[in-house]
């Protein structure tokens, strides 16, 4: 048993630190700190993505045959932790984390050759079209339909909760290609060009006033059959791959621990109940970090993920929500500011009371409520844990 890094891992960490010190500009750092949503806004994200791509580390979690740097799970974790501690922007995951792995795993050579470079260069900005109104987390009841006409599908339907769709020019979507078979069998996975007639994006404002979510209406949208990933009817299993990949993909604790440390700086020393809440959150977050690390170490040594890996999204949601609530309280009345302007690091923002960190606190608190809802509610997580870990 050993928690220390090898010499190689240590020098890798130094390399990452040096890179971040040199490349992560104060503007990027500030943009990241004052981001109220899940992902960096496009101006920040685009710049950081280009820097990472230049360094060869953008697709650090892709295998080398797909163009990744060939890092081990521990190296990826070191990189993520260093990025979190340095306060790097969080890049949108729809392309890099979701459709990217789908493409290099299930895509044809032609699809890979066309889409992967454009994903990396940010020429394509991807959105995820899975959820539909009324279906909640229940993908089997999908109603968007794709009818084959020659070498095209004609797609009509209504997607919802589509993160950053207002910036996207590509949508990957689950659609029903066969209504006759068992619900899960009739689903296919399509890549849809959003710059065409019939695609309408309608914003859903969050309670915070942030515009992160959208509805996407598809009205007889034409999709070449060559933009179907996998076979017809294979959509369900591709989606499963994608969701498991999303879940197992990254660690939550490093960002939480880094944000908690930053709060102590931005809000000053916490006392009384606030100090107690901060301490308890840190205990939970340190435990979570090790819970995540245990799984990574096991994977590094070739084991299959333990059911314990199912607990991290649930725990991270709760710790994150506790952290953002603490931030609001730590800033007192100033934590209750909520300007209507966006982004918080932008030039249109009114002068903050106390500090920009105070100004963004309420928006972050409100947006953090979504952690326990999207990507499988906390209730669904508990049911999954009971089943997988305890056989209930």
């Amino acid at each position, binding site marked *: 048993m050993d928690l220390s890094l090898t010499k190689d891992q240590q020098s890798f960490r130094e390399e990452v630190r040096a890179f971040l010190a040199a490349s992560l500009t104060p503007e990027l750092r500030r943009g990241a700190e004052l981001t109220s949503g899940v992902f960096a806004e496009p101006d920040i994200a685009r710049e950081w993505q280009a820097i990472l791509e230049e360094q060869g580390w953008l697709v650090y979690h892709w295998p080398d045959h797909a163009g990744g740097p060939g890092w081990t799970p521990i190296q990826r974790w070191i990189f993520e932790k260093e990025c979190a501690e340095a306060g790097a922007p969080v890049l949108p995951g729809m392309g890099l984390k979701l459709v990217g792995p789908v493409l290099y795993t299930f895509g044809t050579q032609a699809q890979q050759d066309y889409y992967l470079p454009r994903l990396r260069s940010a020429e394509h900005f991807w959105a995820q079209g899975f*959820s539909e109104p*009324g279906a*909640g*987390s*229940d993908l089997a009841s999908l109603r968007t339909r794709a009818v084959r006409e020659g070498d095209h599908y004609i797609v009509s339907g209504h997607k*919802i*909760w589509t993160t950053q769709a207002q910036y996207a020019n590509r949508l990957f979507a689950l659609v029903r290609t066969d209504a006759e078979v068992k619900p899960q069998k009739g689903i296919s996975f399509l890549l849809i060009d959003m710059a065409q007639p019939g695609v309408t994006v309608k914003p*859903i*404002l*969050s*309670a915070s*006033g942030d515009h992160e*979510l959208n509805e996407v209406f598809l009205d007889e949208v034409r999709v070449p059959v060559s933009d179907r990933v996998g076979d017809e009817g294979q959509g369900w299993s591709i989606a499963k791959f994608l969701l498991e990949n999303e879940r197992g993909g990254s660690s939550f604790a490093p960002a939480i621990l880094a944000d908690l440390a930053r709060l102590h700086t931005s809000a000053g020393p916490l006392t*009384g*109940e*606030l100090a107690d809440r901060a301490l308890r959150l840190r205990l939970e977050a340190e435990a979570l970090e090790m819970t995540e690390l245990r799984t990574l170490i096991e994977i590094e040594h070739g084991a299959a993920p333990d059911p314990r890996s199912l607990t991290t999204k649930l725990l991270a949601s709760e710790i994150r*929500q506790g952290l953002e*609530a603490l931030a*609001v*309280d730590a800033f*007192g*009345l*100033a*934590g*209750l*500011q*909520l*300007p*209507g302007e966006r982004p918080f690091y932008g030039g249109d923002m*009114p*002068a903050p*009371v106390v500090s920009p960190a105070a100004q963004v606190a*309420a928006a972050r*608190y*409100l*947006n953090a*409520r*979504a952690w*326990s*809802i*999207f990507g499988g*509610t*906390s*209730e669904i997580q508990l049911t999954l844990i009971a089943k997988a870990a305890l056989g209930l």
Partner: protein
Amino acid sequence: MNLALSDEQAMVRDMVRRFLADRYDATTMAKGPMSSDDWRALGELGLFALLMPEQAGGLGGGAVEVMIISQELGRALAITPLAEAILLCGRALAADQAVGGWTDRLMQGDALLAFARGGEVVDGRLSGLADIVRDGVNADAFVVETEVGALLLVDVQDSGIRRIPVRLVDGSMAANVRFDAALAQPLTAPASLWAEAHTLAGLSIIAELVGAMSTLLDLTVDYIKQRHQFGKPIASFQVVQHRCARMYTWLEQSRSLLLKAAMVGEKERTRAVTTARAYIGDTALKLAEEAVQLHGGMGVTNELAVGRGLRRVLLLSRLHGGGIAARSALAA
């Protein structure tokens, strides 16, 4: 011991409830601060006069009246300056005949007063900063408590006032106010009246919170009965039932402490309000968060009253230092 409202009190409650029901429903609740027309209409109904002390020309309504009116406002998730404009500022003015014009306009809903803390007075002129003065952007005058505790009235017409708007989480507009040798009229509200003002303002806020809690629970119960997941109404899941039952216990426990705070004798009221805030400050937010969670994705949008209600509850539950400050006060 008696929990029944007097006929007059019941009438006031029904009147306010009807007034608000005509204006607020699940699509309009908490969308923004109450319009000045509606505010004026409430003044014309005599609501503010009811809550003002008799020496200010009001009807001297007490804690119970504050509770029932505030609870109705909370139930409608109405965003108004009642606690500070009427209960705080109104009482600050009450002893001064010289400012009678303001008192009358306040009661009619014609003028809006905001309460600010900060600054110091030199030669009858106020200078200094007051950050995040609630409703400070639209206020016609400020009641200011200076750093040494003097009470003053400052008209916004005075050229020595600069205001920078600060939007708050419920959508209401506060201001950072800079006083620069602004003409300030001393107020002489006796300490007991001023203490009562703070107590009643505190009571108003916890009553609004309890009203908001009951609405958020109602909205949630309605929602889970209608919506389906995995082919069943959400309300049929045992976990959801138990969570709603738990929210109900929070609501009833909160209501109990609110009722006690409104009903105890005057001497015990300040402590009872602090006790209630120590519990309700945390519990209201917890309930609002649960309400959002049980609404799923829709809960975190600006579309439904529940997401906007969370914002209002966040603000109200944190005012006056929220539960944390109240517990500190009780522990001291």
